[in-house]
Structure formats: C-alpha cells, structure tokens
C-alpha cells in the first residue's frame, strides 16, 4: 500500500493527487467491471507474458 500513483488533478495544489497502489488497482478493476470486463488472474498473466516476449523486428 505504501507505493503511490501520482494522478493528474488540476484541483490539487501539488499538481497531482497521490493514490495508494491498492486503491489504484481496485479502481481499475472496478472501471473494467463497469464496462463489462471482469479481469482475471489468467488475463493478467497472459498480458504480462505478452509484454515480456521479445518484439519481432520489422
């Protein structure tokens, strides 16, 4: 929880609002669910795996 994402926030006098990582992830999951997407562990692992794969040169 002690890692924070600094999110753009024009209302903040710091130029951003720090949000704990846990809350950030919870929000992302909640938004996805509202859009009909239930993010599963399998999807996350697949996503990480595809990010790790070496990119083919064009």
């Amino acid at each position, binding site marked *: *929880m*002690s*890692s*924070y*994402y*600094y*999110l753009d926030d024009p209302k*903040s*006098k*710091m*130029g*951003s*609002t*720090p*949000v*704990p*990582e846990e809350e950030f992830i919870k929000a992302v999951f909640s938004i996805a669910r509202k859009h009909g997407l239930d993010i599963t562990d399998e999807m996350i692992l*697949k*996503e990480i795996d*595809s*990010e790790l794969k070496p990119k083919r040169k064009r």
Partner: protein
Amino acid sequence: MKLTRDELHLNLKGKTAVFIDWANVYGWNSRKQKPVNPDKLYKYFKSYEEVLDILFYFGEDTHPKSKLFLEEIRKIGFNIITKPVKYIPVNIDSSHFKSISKEIKAALVSNKKLETTDIEQILKILDRKILRRKCDFDIEIAMDVYRLINTRETFIFLSGDGDFAPLIRFLASKKKKVIVIFGEGHLGKEVAQIGKQVFLCSAKNIPAISDGA
C-alpha cells in the same frame, strides 16, 4: 505562535523524530477528517520541545505546481526528503490493446471525412506511450529511522500504512516509544494488531493540525 494543546497532548519520551509520509496523509481527507494543513502540522510538532526532527517525504514531478508545493513546504521549515517520481510506460499499442489499436487505425485511414492532418494527429496519440507516475518512500523512511535509532527515544509516524508494522515492531523491541498518527479509515490492520507496543492516535483527535481548526 504558541499552540494550546488541550485537545490532545502527546506524551513524548526524550528526543523525538517525526516522519510524515505526505502521500498517505494527503489521502486522509474525508467527511470525518478535514485536510491536514502542512503549516499547522509543523507548528503543532514544533510546540513540543522534545521534537528535534520533522521529516517530510514526498515525490517531485515535472508539474510546476509540484516544485512550488515543495518550496512552500521547505519555507515552512520541514526537512524535505524528495526524489523524482518514476514514470512507468503503459503503451496502448501493445499486447491485447494492439488489435483494438489496429482496428482504430484502419478505420481512421479509410475515413474520408477526416483531414489527413487530423488522422496523423490521432495516430500520433495512439502511438504515444502513456506514462504513469509512481513513488514511495519506505526505504528512505526506514533508513532515516536506522540513522536516528541511537539518538532518539520517540518515533512518530504520520501514516497508517500496514507496511510499517515490521519497523514499528523493531523500534518497540529496542525499547523506543512509537506513536502512529493515522487518518480515519487509513489504519492498516497490521499496525492495528501490534497492540501495546504502539500508541495509535487518530488525526481527528488533533484538530490543531487540520484546516478549519
């Protein structure tokens, strides 16, 4: 300004250091808790003669307001510990976004209603990496605790973060007094479960540190 501390007097034992994890404190604002005011916070701790260090931890980014804020904090008198926030790239043109991105690009290129410059602009945005800013000060706080452990008797943490539990236990095992000041609803169960080794204090019981006090 001399503060009256009749609402809550912290019973400090010997030389004291205060650690403020501002990212945590900033999130305390709620219906039950007015925003913590940095100026009032500093004056509150300064009113205790035992307090020798008031350490303020917060990340710095490129936004001009960020620099101004930290400058303001420095002027108040805090000892600031800062570092640049990390920029983590999130590319929408990668992995499973790739197919969506490809479809959008194809649709754009075939769209006769859009100007070429508009299409180029949108394609540019699609190719741009989205950066997320991230920062934490756990290690810095732990290192400062370690630096001060032989010369301070009381350690005050402004953060209810459960990740601090091992550090609090360690300090208690060294016979140090530990006080955790937390926002309502922002106390990690790991800290709440420590028991008698730590003195827990809700920030709402110290109105002198908040706006509107």
